[in-house]
């Protein structure tokens, strides 16, 4: 075990708030770092780990125990809310992430948010896993929760293409959906804080690969501002893809951190956000963690550290075939210090 001048949790929280530098940069995972290899090492596999709180917590803890990350994040899929709201979800397999099979909402009136949302099995499992992690690791390790924002939940409920087209042909419908679905995000996030999360990731994929910064500004920025106000606790925004053109809007929204991709250059991002929001990222999945060698990971990691990223992390949920050696290489590079 590494001699800690600072505990993983203190290191992570300090990075999240852009604070004291400490012994070294923190390595965290706002999104899943589970791979088939990690499942084999723990003996806990998908899809069980999406639906059983003990298995979910144990597999998530392997990110700390086996990979040496400073955080534990138990929500591996992006479909927990979708199932609770009525989508049919295929929970996948060890080599396949879950996916919503149906998109039942074509009109706002068809959207039904159950009163017992937090009691729905796919929601409750995450809350119970967080409680277990808090109890077993809470003093030592950063506990990260994760919820989907109203934009991402709309993709699942309505279908991506339909929802994106509505932004142009029926913007009122989009606003009404976001207005109602933000209540799901707020309720689930607040429950995750109560269950023991130190910080909650809000994943809301208004990505540069799909929509313009203006679309984010018009539709989502005021919604995000309200969500952050009503949650109160620390938040990290996750939007993958190239979002170089909207970083200032994320600052304006008020997130504590932004979890970003390799496509967004770390040096540019550090300059643009100017320490008004922490940057968490941005080791490339496609070319490096999945497709590269530990040496490739090392090079990218050092680049991100030198650029001034606040917390290191894989850029997004890692591909399930990612080798453990590559994930550990992030931690190794971080351990070399500043």
């Amino acid at each position, binding site marked *: 075990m590494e001699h800690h001048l600072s505990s993983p949790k203190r290191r992570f929280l300090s990075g999240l708030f852009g604070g004291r530098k400490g012994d070294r940069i923190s390595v965290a995972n706002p999104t899943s770092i589970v791979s088939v290899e990690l499942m084999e090492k723990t003996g806990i596999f998908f899809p069980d780990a999406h639906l059983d709180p003990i298995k979910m917590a144990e597999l998530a803890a392997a990110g700390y125990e086996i990979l040496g990350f400073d955080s534990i994040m138990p929500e591996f899929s992006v479909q927990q809310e979708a199932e609770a709201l009525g989508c049919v979800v295929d929970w996948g397999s060890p080599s396949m992430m879950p*996916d919503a099979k149906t998109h039942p909402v074509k009109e706002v009136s068809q959207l039904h948010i159950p009163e017992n949302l937090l009691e729905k099995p796919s929601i409750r499992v995450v809350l119970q896993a967080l409680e277990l992690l808090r109890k077993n690791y809470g003093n030592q390790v950063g506990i990260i929760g994760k919820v989907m924002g109203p934009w991402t939940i709309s993709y699942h409920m309505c279908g991506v293409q339909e929802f994106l087209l509505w932004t142009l042909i029926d913007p009122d419908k989009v606003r009404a959906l976001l207005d109602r679905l933000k209540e799901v995000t707020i309720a689930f996030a607040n429950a995750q804080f109560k269950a023991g999360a130190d910080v909650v990731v809000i994943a809301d994929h208004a990505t540069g690969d799909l929509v313009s910064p203006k679309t984010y500004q018009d539709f989502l920025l005021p919604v995000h501002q309200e969500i952050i106000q009503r949650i109160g606790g620390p938040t990290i925004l996750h939007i993958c893809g190239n979002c170089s053109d909207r970083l200032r809007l994320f600052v304006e929204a008020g997130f504590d951190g932004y979890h970003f991709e390799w496509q967004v250059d770390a040096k540019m991002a550090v300059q643009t956000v100017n320490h008004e929001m922490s940057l968490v990222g941005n080791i490339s999945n496609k070319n490096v963690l*999945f497709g590269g060698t530990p040496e490739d990971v090392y090079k990218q990691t050092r680049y991100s550290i030198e650029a001034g990223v606040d917390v290191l992390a894989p850029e997004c949920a890692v591909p399930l075939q990612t080798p453990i050696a590559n994930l550990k290489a992030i931690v190794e590079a971080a351990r070399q210090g500043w």
Partner: protein
Amino acid sequence: MFQEEIQRYYEALREPKINKIEELVREFIEKHVSSVVILNEGLIGAMGIIGQEFKASKLWVPEVLLAARNMHRGIEILKPELLKNNVPSKGKFLIGTVKGDIHDIGKNLVIMMMTGAGYQVIDLGIDVPQERFLEAIDKERPDIVGLSALLTTTMLEMKEVVKSIPKNFSSPPKIIIGGAPVTRKFSEEIAADGYGEDAIRAVELADQLLMSKGMI
């Protein structure tokens, strides 16, 4: 067609209300403009501008989805006239998302752009097993086959499909691949004929491949 007229088609494709494109196509039919000109210069010409603007990040996916919806409606109105003229397509393009992958927004963007560029597109849909690709190639005899994958897991399936096509056909179609995890390096490794990083590049690739075959 004059530049100002193509501009009117462009504006109609950008219009959230679908009646704009309906009125415009009807207006040109009534003016006795050839349906081939309306299609190739008006609708396809305007879609080309949309494609270029999308590539240059001046437009985004919602605008492309809207333009594709409007264009589709324009072609529907034009169809009776086109049938009278028997317009040939640029080439036949067969596309599907490989087995294990159900994500289709990238594939659908490619279809919109290929249709918009004048290709006849056959969409096999999502989660398409190797046998279905082979059966469809045998039946349809496409000039080009496009394979799409969003997941890293399904890239391996892509490799199998790419390998199987030349084995099964004496004059196989050209194969182009794309999707979020796919790279040029991967495309070269599995010996596909081309890699497109986005939907516009897919059209350019298809044009180049057909040109090298002397088809256009």
